[in-house]
């Protein structure tokens, strides 16, 4: 809608069907709906340069150094690119078809569970999103790593709490509340202990 490539969901559906027919793909209705209801973590629009970027954040385990698909980050990014590749191709195709200037791309932000972050690629992605100041880039990089380390630690805490207390505890909404709350770790730890003892 934002790109002005279609006016109604009906016309989008027709475009998707036509696009997939051209690609030699025939999908049932359910899969067709899942094609255009796909949700990346965010979408950024550059109105001036008519650039649209799919944003995807992942926090995989950073143990694999080398495999046929690459290291831990490359493997995950390959997976994410495959998931949204067709959508990006579709938007670019539709844009060209309707003589619109929009160009679509994807930016993957991948931070390992133990704080690994490919700084060159991360900075390139930030530049793509309009963060040009190098100090700001470093600040964002540091923030991402520290936040990831703090929240990855919460998962380990929750594992202990769930094992000591009850595995069902992990399925309740409390862990989500804890992870969503401020990560001032000492307070959080106190809160977890309170829940373990009194709830």
């Amino acid at each position: 809608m934002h790109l002005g490539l279609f006016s109604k969901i009906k016309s989008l559906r027709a475009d998707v069907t036509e696009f997939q027919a051209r690609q030699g793909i025939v999908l049932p209705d359910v899969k067709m709906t899942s094609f255009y209801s796909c949700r990346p973590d965010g979408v950024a629009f550059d109105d001036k340069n008519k650039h649209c970027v799919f944003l995807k954040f992942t926090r995989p385990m950073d143990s694999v150094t080398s495999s046929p698909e690459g290291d831990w980050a490359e493997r995950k990014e390959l997976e994410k690119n495959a998931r949204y590749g067709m959508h990006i191709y579709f938007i670019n195709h539709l844009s060209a078809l309707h003589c619109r200037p929009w160009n679509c791309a994807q930016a993957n932000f991948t931070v390992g569970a133990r704080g690994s972050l490919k700084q060159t690629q991360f900075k390139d992605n930030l530049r793509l999103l309009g963060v040009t100041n190098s100090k700001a880039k470093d600040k964002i990089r540091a923030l991402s790593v520290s936040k990831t380390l703090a929240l990855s630690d919460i998962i380990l805490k929750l594992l202990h709490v769930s094992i000591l207390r009850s595995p069902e505890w992990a399925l309740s909404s409390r862990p989500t509340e804890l992870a969503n709350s401020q990560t001032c770790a000492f307070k959080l730890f106190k809160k977890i202990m309170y829940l373990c003892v009194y709830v």
Partner: protein
Amino acid sequence: MNKTLRTRVHLKVSELQLPLHKNYTSEFLHREDNSRDLLGKHWQEKTVPDRSKRRLLQSIGHQFPCAKLLKLWGLRDNYECRLCKRLHPEVTPWPESLGHIQARCPALQKPRIAVHHGIWRELLTAISRNSVESHDDGDRK
């Protein structure tokens, strides 16, 4: 020996020792372009509690006491994930490794999603605060 001097000597010795070792931990610490400098900064952060630092060190050193490691040390009979086993007894449980806990354990899916959203929210806020995207009206926001 002076405390500061002793710390410096320890740091220098560790730095010299690191290339001599060839194991998973040294390989992890040696990876280039992986923001290893920030690990050190996080470690020095005074607001980070010691327990968190200990768990981080255990994670990096492949010493986190998960069932797989406890089995290796002879402290457990099996390496099956304790949460998966209790919550899904009908399915063969996965080995409880750090990777399983952090990225795959179905029992910890909810907190994992919350953690994902928590990091992403912060990252997105920081990007939008620092982005200087120019708009049609000439504004730079």
